[in-house]
Structure formats: C-alpha cells, structure tokens
C-alpha cells in the first residue's frame, strides 16, 4: 500500500483539466498527477505513489529529523569515549 518514492518536480502542466507534473527521481523521470498538491512549484520535492503526488516533502522537517538522530550519534560517541 505504501510504495512511495520522493522525486523533484521539474515541470508542471495541465492535461484533460488535471494538474500534472514531470517528476525527476535521480535521473529517471515519470509523469505524476499533482491534483493533491496544487501549491506545488517546480523544484519542490514530493512523494509519488501509483502516479500521484501525495504531499510535498518538508525540507525543514527532514533536516530536523536527521539532526535529532545525529545528536544520538554524538551521544554515542561521548558514551564510548567515557567507557574507554
């Protein structure tokens, strides 16, 4: 149910009155329907599932998640130093 892949919107256009976009997945491109992300702009990243963009990806939240986890990396490093 959940196979969704992040891709970059490189083009936006209309087809049969549906908002569509060309999405770039690290060199592979495919069309996707953008009807559910009408605020999308070229350059935004989105999650595509069965040819539909389900949401835009928040760069800020992605960074925050990674930062939180990198803090764990730092804590681990400190802990292993203490143990030495």
């Amino acid at each position, binding site marked *: 149910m*959940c196979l969704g*892949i992040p891709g970059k919107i490189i083009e936006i256009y209309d087809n049969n009155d549906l908002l569509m976009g060309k999405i770039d997945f*690290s060199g592979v491109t495919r069309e996707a*329907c953008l009807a*559910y992300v009408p605020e999308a702009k070229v350059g935004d*990243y989105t999650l595509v599932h*069965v040819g539909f963009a389900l949401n835009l990806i928040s760069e800020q939240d992605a960074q925050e998640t990674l930062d939180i986890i990198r803090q764990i990396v730092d804590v681990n490093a400190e802990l292993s130093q203490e143990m030495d």
Partner: protein
Amino acid sequence: MKYLTEFRDPELAHAVLDEIHRTVTRPWVLMEICGGQTHSIMRYGLDQLLPDEIELVHGPGCPVCVTSLELIDKAQEIASQPGVIFTSYGDMLRVPGSSRDLFSVRASGGDIRVVYSPLDAIEIAQQNPEQQVVFFAIGFETTAPANAMSVIQAKALRLSNFSILVSHVRVPPAMYTILSSPHNRVQGFLAAGHVCTVMGYWEYPPIANKFGVPIVVTGFEPVDILRGILMTVNQLEETRTDVENGYPRLVTYEGNRQAQAVINEVFLECDRKWRGIGEIPNSGWCLRPEFSQFNALNRFSVDQIQTEESSICIAGQILQGLKKPPDCPAFGSQCTPEYPLGATMVSSEGACAAYYQYSGKNIPS
C-alpha cells in the same frame, strides 16, 4: 537519491539501534500494519538487529493479500469475459482466488493489463472505446486518492466504458479489531507513514486513549523505521500512551485535506471482508451511489459468486501474534502457498508462507 539515501545511512541506523538497545529494559510487542514497512524490515534485516526483548508482529498491512476471496473470484470472472480489458496493479495478478489467479485467466484468453497508475487505465479506456475497461481499485488509504481520481476523471471525460472494482481497506478499524481481542498482545503500534500522509493522524488519539497503547507514525527507510521503534519503546518504558509523529517531513496531523475531500466525494465507509480474518465493520470504502455507474459490480453480473472465507483459517490470530502457523489445523494440509486460505499464506512475507517454505529444510542458524 535525495530523501532516501540519508535515511538509509548505516551510521544513523546504528546510532538509533544502539539507543534502542540502551532504552529497552523488558519485553515489548510492537505491531506494524503496512506491507511496505514489512518489506523494508525484511530487506534490511532490521528485526535481526533489534534487542531480543522487542517482538515485531507484522499485522494485516498488505492490501493485496487481505482482499477477500469473494472479490478476487469476482475479479477473475469479470476479467474472463469477452470484450473486457481488465487493468490492475501488478501484485494483484498473482493473488490466488478459490481456484486460479489472474495469470491463469490471461492464459485462457482474458485481456489483463498491468498498470502503474489508475490514470493509465483511464487512458486505456479512451484508446479502446468499444471495449469495457475495468480497473481493480484495491489498497489502503494511501491508494484511495488515486483510485478516486480515476472515477472523477471518467465522469469528467464522459467515459461510458470505464468502471472500477473496489476493495479498499482502512487501517483504524483493523487496529480496533486487533486491540479489542481479549487475547491481544500488541502493546505499541507503528502507524503506516504513507497512509498518514493522506489521512493525517487525527484518527489515532481515540484509539491510543481507549486501549492505552502508544502509536508512532513511522516512515519506511531503515532509519525511519528504527526511529519509529525507538519512539514507541521510549513511550512504553515511560508508560506513556501518546500519538507521536516520527515522519514529519511528510505527515501532518490533518493530513492532505484535498485528498481526503476527494475520497469523501467518491467513497463512503462500508463493511469489508478481510481474507482469512472475516468481516470488520466500517473497515472499507465503497463507491457512493452517485458514482454507481462506475461500479463494476453493477455493470457485470457477478452477484451469484458468493465465496465464503475459510472457517478454519486462523490468519487473524497469527497476524496479531497470538498463534504461530503450526498451531493451525489447516497449516500445510488444506492451506499451502498453492492453495492459501488466509493472508498470511498468500503473502510471501506472511508468517505462514515463511514457515511453510522452511519446514523440513535446512534453516540457517
């Protein structure tokens, strides 16, 4: 690949794993209900690396495998009719019905085509106006916006040769059913990240409160899954029962309002049979009467097909971690991968299929 590679970073994954190992003090049973998460856990061998105290139960998260036997039989009947082009997501072609799968129907002359997107099915309908095009609209909430859009497009384009066979299933009622069981062992849930991308997580607090279980919205990459597990274990160790979002880059509390609006426009809640589990009330979506002209069940006469789910299948209990496959009287005899009775044998990632493949052979220790 941006937003994928970072969340597969082994260093980050190990950091989270170490933290899980440090945090856990006693056994906990966690469940994920998402075929995609099950797949990722297996692909990266995550359950091997977790502390022994954590038991991960793979719930009924594969919409392909929980589609009811009756609907599969109906799909095959429709697909075998002349003048029909039957379109479907790839994985459905393999699902065995009472006696055969869609591959067999194709071998007997049925025009069955795999599509990546429901809009591809619309295109096929436009290109073949003299044939009936049916789309097998299965999935959890993640796929509902796409499936719904196919009907909206069909209406807008005035297609008279397009219909869908709906088998949508919803996660919250499944969680209710699992948690309501008097023998329930599940203590924490990883909520499916892409389901929540569409639906948000506003449906989960009542469940968390009623049953006293933490629920953490979790993504799919190894770092995401491990983080979801860490957040859940933290809550369990601290005796908290909150709903937390471990996938904020895609999931918000409200979810995608636009998508939910379209789902509500096209579908309404209905009871749904889950293969090998039985009927769960309000656990499905069906086409609203306004769209009944696109309902394949109305367009084709398949009412006479009424297949009962197996009464001996205990997939429901296996999916909750209450029983193991060898406990089932049908395991290996009436129920095999060739003739599966329930979802856990249909799915190659299901407990029963996995046990079956390993019985009598060398199991690596």
